[in-house]
């Protein structure tokens, strides 16, 4: 929910001052000024006061997934360090992954603000795996801003005060007489010194606790935080200089790819022509793996030729007998029962299914590995590098400290980089060939053998009478989501402190910590049951929320309709979250809710609160035949969202321009989930093998008009925002589609029952590249 407390309609201001929390800071021994702080102590919000409301609080209301991550981080001893250099710049290695969401820019803004240094003089890099940080090096759950906000600012503020104290000592004046601005310490107009000129003198010869607690700026004093800033990596991105995994040059690391089995997780029984393939042009090595055969060569193109030429006998995979229909049958059989009997009341019962979806980023999975007899070095985009380091060390038979894991910039993630299977595979190939390798999965590999957001089934029962909703029950059943990447360990280590009862599984715990209904619908229960099936699954942006929220908001519209009310008026009547009410009101005003549209077009509204933030999405969809049937080569067109509005309350918006970008991304993900993009499982493998088969939103699907409204701050702390907009946007698109067509869509995406492409062959596992590219030049 948006509100950390249950004080919904009478929000009490919870004291949020920094005096309530303490971040220990240290001066570190270094050639120039370096300040270290413990990371992750921020925002361990205390449980809030109970308040009487018709629906008792659900666990997520009291304590959410981000709080869990903060709690897990609290006892760790690792320090993060802001350093000031002799050239007047400051640097900070953030123990997180940057996968496109602007985290490095936001963190640089925190440093710039408290250090009084221009943003362009702050350099942020991604830290290598640091085992001493324990579970505090996990990028996920939209937690990065929430967990870094206080520690990073504290480190920068201590550094600024140390620079001031150094100048004061040199000039023989009181520190209180000095001011700082744009990287310069000034004593009125009499004396000035740049940070660079003070950096060495301000350094400490040994590790010391910072003498005093620094004064952090109040929001009213901010000149950087809360202002729109462009991405610090934008110039590199538009000039092609930004380096992603495969752009790094590691001596001797040559391309490698893998021939993969025709079913998920199939095994290698025999390779029949290893020697012949090793003789192919450019190829240096051919080595069998458990789930494939690796080839290494001079170019990726020659690796594709070689892997296609391999003759392999495959053993069975883990889900050979499974298809969409068999999975759905199992989900239905496992769905938990409803408990409220619909006696003497009216009711709505509905069942929604959500197809498998791929979290594949645009950058195909890849990693560089250089494994030697006594050590290994890995380069990959990893959101949980510590777990990767430990497990890769185990597999290689090396001690953990002998494996160096570098976190490189990722070309997207959407949940994929929580897993290190690709880095582990690269390490295995390097160990088996005895040579450094640059491993890339092919695009087809990523869709067919990569991680999927599993199929789920959401059943909802709502009962109502006399203008009141008396109960709301939601039973969400999913093929099992794999959380075996560190978040599970985090839950184990903090289980006793969580406000969820009983022996819940990791997945159930995460579900309870992320899901809650924002409406006063009487008896409210939302439960998860997961079926272990052997697919390669994982989280996808916003995990359970998009599907759960889509089902809920569709039912809310149905309830409104049954009670003869407008969807917005109905929501206003039952909302118990003031911040959601505010974003709803803003969306209604800016988006001109209720304006007249031609038959076949309609507006839809969706609401969702999570990560201590709140979003309302208002869209207009065009389902008229002339739009639905528009033709574009090898494309899924269909209904088009012509206008979209995202109204977001992110607590305190660190960088409104970045927040707008995240909301735009969330909306386009939502369009894909609602209308176009899914995996079709047939006989143990997804049929999709390219971006013209997995129909993520394209320019012909995206709304010509998109507007994002960032609400004024409602908190002094940022909420999570990178995933926050997917669920409400998915719901809004689904609700608009339902209203435009006069139907209740129950299977998502709506085009899933039509296979809109001819699947690529399953063998060889990677298709050959075309040769007719010049014919399509324009």
């Amino acid at each position, binding site marked *: 929910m948006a509100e950390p407390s249950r004080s919904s309609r009478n929000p009490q201001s919870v004291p949020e001052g920094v005096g309530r929390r303490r971040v220990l800071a240290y001066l570190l021994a270094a050639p120039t000024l370096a300040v270290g702080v413990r990371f992750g102590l921020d925002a361990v919000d205390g449980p809030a006061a109970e308040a009487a409301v018709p629906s008792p609080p659900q666990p997520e209301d009291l304590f959410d997934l981000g709080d869990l991550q903060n709690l897990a981080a609290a006892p760790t001893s690792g320090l993060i360090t802001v350093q000031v250099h002799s050239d007047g710049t400051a640097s900070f290695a953030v123990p997180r992954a940057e996968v496109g969401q602007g985290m490095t820019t936001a963190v640089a803004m925190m440093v710039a603000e408290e250090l009084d240094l221009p943003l362009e003089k702050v350099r942020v890099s991604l830290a290598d795996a640091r085992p001493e940080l324990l579970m505090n090096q996990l990028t996920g759950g939209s937690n990065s801003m929430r967990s870094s906000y206080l520690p990073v600012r504290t480190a920068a503020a201590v550094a600024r005060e140390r620079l001031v104290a150094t100048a004061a000592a040199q000039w023989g004046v009181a520190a209180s007489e000095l001011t700082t601005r744009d990287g310069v310490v000034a004593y009125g107009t009499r004396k000035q010194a740049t940070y660079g000129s003070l950096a060495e003198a301000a350094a400490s010869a040994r590790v010391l606790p910072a003498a005093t607690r620094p004064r952090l700026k109040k929001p009213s004093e901010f000149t950087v935080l809360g202002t729109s800033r462009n991405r610090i990596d934008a110039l590199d991105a538009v000039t092609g200089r930004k380096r992603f995994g495969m752009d790094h040059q590691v001596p001797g690391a040559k391309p490698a790819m893998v021939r993969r089995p025709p079913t998920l997780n199939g095994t290698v029984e025999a390779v029949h022509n290893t020697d012949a393939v090793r003789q192919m042009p450019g190829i240096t090595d051919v080595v069998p793996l458990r789930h494939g055969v690796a080839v290494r060569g001079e170019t990726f193109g020659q690796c594709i030729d070689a892997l296609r030429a391999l003759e392999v006998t495959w053993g069975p995979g883990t889900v050979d007998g499974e298809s969409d229909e068999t999975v759905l049958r199992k989900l239905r059989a496992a769905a938990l029962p409803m408990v409220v009997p619909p006696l003497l009341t009216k009711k709505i019962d509905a069942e929604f299914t959500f197809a498998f979806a791929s979290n594949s980023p645009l950058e195909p999975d890849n990693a560089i590995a250089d494994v030697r007899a006594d050590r290994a070095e890995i380069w990959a985009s990893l959101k949980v590098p510590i777990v990767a380091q430990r497990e890769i060390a185990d597999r290689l038979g090396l001690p953990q400290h002998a494996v160096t894991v570098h976190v490189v910039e990722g070309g997207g993630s959407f949940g994929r980089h929580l897993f290190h299977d690709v880095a582990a595979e690269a390490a295995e190939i390097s160990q088996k060939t005895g040579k450094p390798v640059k491993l890339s999965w092919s695009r087809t590999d990523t869709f067919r053998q990569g991680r999927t957001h599993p199929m789920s089934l959401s059943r909802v029962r709502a009962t109502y009478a006399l203008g009141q909703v008396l109960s709301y029950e939601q039973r969400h059943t999913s093929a099992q989501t794999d959380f075996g990447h560190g978040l599970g360990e985090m839950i184990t280590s903090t289980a006793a402190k969580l406000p969820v009862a009983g022996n819940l599984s990791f997945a159930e715990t995460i579900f309870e910590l992320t899901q809650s209904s924002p409406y006063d619908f009487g008896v409210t229960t939302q439960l998860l049951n997961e079926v272990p099936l052997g697919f390669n699954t994982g989280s996808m942006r916003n995990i359970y929320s998009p599907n759960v929220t889509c089902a809920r908001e569709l039912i809310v519209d149905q309830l409104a309709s049954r009670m003869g009310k407008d969807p917005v008026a109905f929501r206003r009547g039952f909302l118990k979250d003031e911040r959601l009410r505010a974003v709803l009101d803003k969306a209604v005003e800016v988006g001109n809710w209720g304006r007249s549209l031609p038959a076949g077009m309609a507006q839809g509204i969706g609401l969702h609160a999570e990560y201590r933030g709140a979003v309302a999405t208002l869209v207009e969809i065009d389902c008229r035949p002339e739009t639905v049937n528009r033709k574009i080569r090898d494309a899924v067109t269909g209904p088009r969202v012509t206008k979209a509005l995202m109204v977001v309350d992110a607590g305190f918006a660190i960088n409104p321009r970045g927040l707008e970008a995240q909301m735009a991304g969330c909306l386009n993900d939502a369009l894909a989930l609602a209308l176009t993009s899914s995996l079709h499982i047939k006989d143990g493998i997804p049929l999709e093998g390219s971006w013209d088969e997995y129909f993520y939103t394209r*320019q012909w699907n995206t709304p010509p008009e998109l507007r994002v409204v960032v609400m004024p701050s409602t908190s002094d702390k940022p909420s999570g925002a990178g995933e926050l907009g997917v669920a409400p946007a998915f719901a809004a698109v689904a609700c608009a589609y339902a209203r435009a067509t006069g139907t209740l869509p129950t299977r998502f995406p709506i085009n899933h029952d039509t296979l809109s492409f001819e699947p690529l062959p399953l063998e060889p596992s990677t298709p050959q590249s075309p040769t007719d590219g010049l014919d399509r030049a324009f």
Partner: protein
Amino acid sequence: MPSHTFTLNGKRITVEAEDDVRLLWVLRDLLGVTGPKYGCGLGVCQACTSHLNGKAFNPCSVPVAKITPDDEITTIEGLPATVGKDLHPMQEAWLDLDVAQCGYCQPGQIMTAVAKVRQAAAEGREVTDADLDQIRNICRCGTYSRIREAIKAGAKNM
């Protein structure tokens, strides 16, 4: 091994490669030019989009033997020099509007955008929403709206 000569980003180069190796791998793996990205190798995602004699094309879908000595190939790295500046107007528009998220598709998006604007100009008109709807480049971060705005803004300064 066969050798291939062509002009790459304004420089005459010769590279040895088997005839059927796709140009993308010649650029990336043999010449170290990493602006064009591998996103699918199928001519679908458009992340490798570069220019051949000023026209947008996918190097992943062209065997290097099809490139002739008279051909001029421009990747994102060579785009600014085509206008004699540090940045092409389309790149400036991209920066002004803070288009990039992860950035992986952006070199291809910009090369496509420049070709689209030129194509419309050759037909004596400005780019339209219908033109933008035809752009096939995937942006998995979903920054499509800013791409559309940036193309229109960049076109004004081309």
